[in-house]
């Protein structure tokens, strides 16, 4: 198990699985093997943290609600649509 700070071919091959590892999409034995490597390899360990940070940043961005003005206009459209009820095949 390498503790190298650089990226070896083995590390680059493992990185292909890193995304699936972070999604919990690996068999337990493979997951444990990767965890052991991440603990021992600075390069891959850092890549794992960087990827987790990118994922967390995306998820945080996804929780941002639309601006209030946007949703006010959206609500007006809903009220107008329901009031008009000129569109067929809506709810019975």
């Amino acid at each position: 198990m390498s503790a190298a700070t650089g990226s070896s071919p083995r590390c680059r091959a493992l990185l292909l699985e890193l995304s699936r590892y972070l999604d919990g999409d690996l068999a337990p034995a493979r997951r444990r093997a990767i965890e052991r490597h991440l603990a021992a390899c600075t390069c891959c360990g850092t890549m794992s943290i960087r990827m987790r940070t990118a994922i967390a940043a995306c998820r945080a961005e996804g929780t941002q609600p639309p601006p209030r003005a946007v949703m006010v206009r959206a609500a007006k459209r809903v009220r107008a649509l329901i009031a008009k009820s000129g569109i067929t095949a809506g709810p019975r």
Partner: protein
Amino acid sequence: MVTKKSRGRRVTKSQGVNPVAKERAGNGPPDEYADLVRLAAAGDAEALDRLLMRAQAVAWRFSSAVCGRGNDAEDAMQEALLKTYRYVGRLREPEAFRSWLYRTVRNACLIGRRKRAGEPARLQSLDEVLPGPEGPRPIDAAHPGKGPEALAANSGLRRRLREALRALPASYRTIVFLREMEGLSTKEVATVMGVSEDNVKTRLYRARVQLQAALGSQS
């Protein structure tokens, strides 16, 4: 399938289950859409209202994250509103609504755009974004001890993320949006995109590699 929670997120030997699915603010878990569809189809006005508001919020988020803001967002919201209203009474499988909604929104956004601004001229090769012999630098060198979630809350990082997302090809950006931001499962993303689950996983991996490289760069 056995799951366990880890720091508030589900970790599972998955078939593409998304640990973020429960955490989406204002989006609700997947089966809540099915319940709203059933109620709305049965004449529940409040359920219909909530469903139509949800549909528009999805359209806004998609348009903002994938297509850019402005007139496109409002047009996509209108399209999502009208199609949801037309469709909700005809749906035989309420559980299929969520995938249908994202597919509809995606099509509305993509048809509405005349030309994609900011589309990269070429896809970066992995050699350009994977670490070289010197190894990768931490994303926030000033605070190396901070965890990923704490770093993600950093406003500078958020700005860099938005720039990094804009630099991705549209299909990658869409997959990141659906999977990471909206909490769809791999299977649902594959249904929305019309590709295989392996294709989704591969593109998601490449997108994540590019994003972490962009977030870790000095600029």
